[in-house]
């Protein structure tokens, strides 16, 4: 090992210890997180994860010296202001927790819009003044109405993926629109010889629910269509059987306790239908009670 300062050696050793003592090692990007917020997040993660900022070279060293197989691959995922996260949580769960803890933040000049940024129509807190011109200048449709500045239409002023200009960033802040999400970006996580990147770590809960429902529906369909008896399929099979039996009884005019009233009513309404046709031709062709 080349000559390095002893504090650096110690830091690498401590990172290595953390790597060895946790199942999951994540590589995060802490760019744009204000210090107080980072403090808060660290505190809330305290029992489940350790966040460690260090120099890239030291982290690389610690990763490459670790005996864990493939963990050195994490090196390729250092972005922005990299930090390491150590936890025993399932990496998918870690990602979910970090995403959920992100908070809204004001736009900064030069930031990339994470989604379409829309200025909604409606009243603003602004009194008439030069701000009207400034709004119009950045493309926000505004006018004065009853002593207030009002935005006349919903307006997408920055599309997803576009860079936010200085003027727009400052206007969004004045409008109290905070389009950015700030928090710990987990870029990749290592567990058990595998490095998972954020695209893999993303969980779509709605899709999971939809899949659960789909699986159940498929199982129910299969049970009913193949006439396999279980407690889910039997009620449906009973309903289907009942429908078929009722159809047969009603279509063949078989009087049963369940069909009797309906068949009588059917005869009656058929009679009324014929009577109405008949009385349409000649009112005297029907008796008084059938005349409308």
């Amino acid at each position, binding site marked *: 090992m080349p000559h390095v300062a002893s504090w650096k050696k110690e830091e690498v050793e401590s990172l290595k210890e953390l790597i060895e003592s946790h199942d999951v090692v994540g590589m995060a990007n802490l760019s744009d997180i204000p210090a107080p917020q980072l403090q808060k997040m660290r505190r809330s993660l305290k029992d489940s994860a350790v966040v460690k900022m260090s120099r890239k070279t030291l982290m690389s060293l610690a990763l490459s010296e670790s005996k864990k197989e493939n963990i050195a691959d994490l090196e390729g995922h250092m972005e922005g202001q990299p930090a390491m996260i150590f936890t025993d949580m399932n990496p998918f769960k870690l990602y979910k927790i970090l995403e959920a803890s992100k908070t809204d933040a004001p736009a900064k000049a030069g930031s990339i819009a994470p989604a379409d940024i829309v200025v909604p129509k409606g009243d603003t807190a602004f009194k008439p003044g030069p701000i009207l011109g400034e709004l119009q200048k950045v493309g926000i449709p505004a006018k004065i109405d009853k002593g207030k500045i009002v935005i006349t239409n919903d307006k997408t002023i920055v599309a997803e993926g576009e860079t936010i200009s200085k003027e727009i960033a400052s206007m969004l802040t004045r409008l109290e629109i905070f389009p950015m999400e700030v928090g710990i970006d987990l870029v990749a996580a290592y567990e058990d010889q595998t490095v998972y990147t954020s695209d893999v770590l993303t969980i779509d809960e709605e899709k999971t629910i939809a899949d659960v429902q789909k699986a159940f529906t498929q199982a129910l369909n299969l049970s009913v269509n193949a006439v396999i008896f279980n407690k889910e399929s039997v009620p449906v099979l009973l309903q289907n059987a009942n429908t078929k039996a009722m159809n047969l009884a009603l279509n063949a005019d078989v009087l049963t306790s369940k069909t009797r009233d309906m068949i009588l009513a*059917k005869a009656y*309404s*058929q*009679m*009324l*239908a*014929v*009577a*109405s*046709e*008949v*009385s349409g*031709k*000649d009112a*005297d*062709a*029907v*008796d008084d*009670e*059938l005349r409308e």
Partner: protein
Amino acid sequence: MEYIYAAMLLHTANQDINEENVKKVLEAAGSEADEARIKALIAALEDVDIEEAIAKTAVAAAAPA
């Protein structure tokens, strides 16, 4: 309504809906048979498609539920 039921009965039994038949059915049912009304009914039914009228009921009844 007896007159209509009588006509429908004859129709379903594939019998002619004429004065004689309607009268016969009504009398068998112990109902008074008014000649003028029977005549009017038969005349009116000439332009009525009973099957169609009945079929319409079915549709109307099915629709609401």
